[in-house]
């Protein structure tokens, strides 16, 4: 790497592979499209958002299909990120010091691995919400429901469809709130965006926010040693 010759440049640490980032961006884009199209039907004051899709009729048929792309993307990402998101004891210590978290005093927090308790909570709440959105979304989707009813030999009652509408709306609001927190954290904690755009973060970012992860990466030889070897 060219940074090796520059003593002032920070260490670069690889955080996400290209395929992980592609998976994440497919989800991110489809989520934003779902948010815009869904919210346009959610409240009359937001109906104008349907203009981005060329009108309400387009929203009606596009939204469920984007939902399928999103749900598939989420399922793959879930499997990929699951091992690093299992809860552990330090998560509770971290949560107990949420005041320090919000104040940005990382020095008072326990050393965390690849994900901190907040990130794990984003992961797990979406892991619950996406299947709910998928099932209730099918309940609201005229052709989709017809297909599901034929495939699985059942007939949804009107009250089940009404419940699906209510639950879909509540789950969507919850998912959007968590999404706002997720985006805000990525903006607030400087140096985070690079993880998803270039796949790397600086060593200092790792040291400050995910020290145990950084130590593991170094110990396993996944971080390039910056000392020029005498042979060169």
């Amino acid at each position, binding site marked *: 790497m060219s940074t090796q010759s520059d003593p002032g440049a920070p260490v670069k640490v690889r955080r996400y592979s290209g395929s992980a980032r592609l998976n994440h961006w497919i989800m991110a884009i489809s989520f934003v499209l779902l948010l815009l199209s869904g919210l346009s039907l959610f409240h*009359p004051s937001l109906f104008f958002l349907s203009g981005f899709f060329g009108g*309400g009729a387009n929203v009606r048929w596009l939204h469920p299909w984007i939902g399928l792309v999103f749900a598939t993307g989420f399922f793959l990402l879930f499997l990929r990120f699951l091992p690093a998101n299992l809860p552990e004891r330090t998560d509770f210590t971290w949560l107990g010091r949420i005041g320090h978290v919000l104040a940005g005093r*990382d020095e008072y927090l326990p050393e965390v691995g690849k994900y901190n308790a907040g990130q794990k909570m984003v992961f797990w709440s979406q892991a619950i919400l996406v299947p709910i959105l998928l099932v209730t979304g099918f309940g609201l989707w*005229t052709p989709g429901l017809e297909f599901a009813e034929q495939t699985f030999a059942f007939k949804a009652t*009107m009250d089940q469809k009404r419940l699906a*509408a209510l639950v879909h709306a509540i789950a969507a609001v919850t998912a959007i709130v968590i999404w706002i927190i997720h985006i805000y954290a990525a903006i607030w904690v400087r140096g985070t965006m690079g993880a998803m755009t270039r796949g790397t973060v600086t060593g200092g970012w790792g*040291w400050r926010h995910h020290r145990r992860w*950084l130590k593991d990466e170094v110990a396993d030889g996944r971080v390039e040693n910056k000392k020029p070897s005498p042979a060169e």
Partner: protein
Amino acid sequence: MTSFQPLDVVRKSATVTTAPPPKRDVEVAKLIDVSKCIGCKACQSACLEWNDLKEPVGTNVGVYDNPHDLTPNTWTLMRFTEWENPKSGNLEWLIRKDGCMHCEDPGCLKACPSPGAIVQYANGIVDFQKEHCIGCGYCEKGCPFNIPRISRIDNKAYKCSLCSDRLAIGQQPACAKACPTQAIMFGTKTEMIAQAEKNVGILKSRGFDKAGLYNPPGVGGTHVMYVLHHADQPNLYAGLADNPRISPLIEAWKGVSKYAGMAIIGATALFGALHYLVKGPNEVSGHDEAEAKRLAEGRK
């Protein structure tokens, strides 16, 4: 679809009206005396003919109901029920003309997310405006009577318009005009209630002591009303709702979930903005980078 003017509209789907609602006109109503119906389906044919609709030939499963359910083309359907009256031991053939009830408090209109796709006119008629309909099917869920149907051909919602286009030019609904027994009557709502009292009186004198008018208060009354010989058991008539009202699930979905949802989303975004203004960004320091470098280079 209709010759009514914008000023005739008192309510519109997905539209917050700030101006005082226009003055209500004389309310109209259709009165269907089920005891006079002979099941000839002239009304059903007249509806197809006036509205230029065609129902594909279906299959006969041994009942008179044809087609088997309301469809995007069949806006009114005669539903036949054979009922053995436990009191008299008589077999009664109950025939009900099913279709939109034109509720004073319309569930479809409350559920519809598309501005102006469903309107209520000053005379009480609830009408779908095809050009604004997006085919989402929310109206089906909002309706307490299971009436609207979404066409899988053009993805628009359809139901009885109470012949709003005929009324606008001073004609009565096509079904009422076609009915040979005057089982279907049409007039102002006040007239029709008075008419119903007469018909109920006749039924009572014939021994139907539970005869009565079906004008359910749960939906604020309807602009299509029935005279029933067993008004204490509307459900006998092919499952007519005993006590129709907009489902609490719909009320919650279209009420509290919207306000709370918008407020919670807004509050979260506001919290983020304030947090950033007060705390500023969480930045990696030069010290952090130096420590990382030391670690990476294996120095102690």
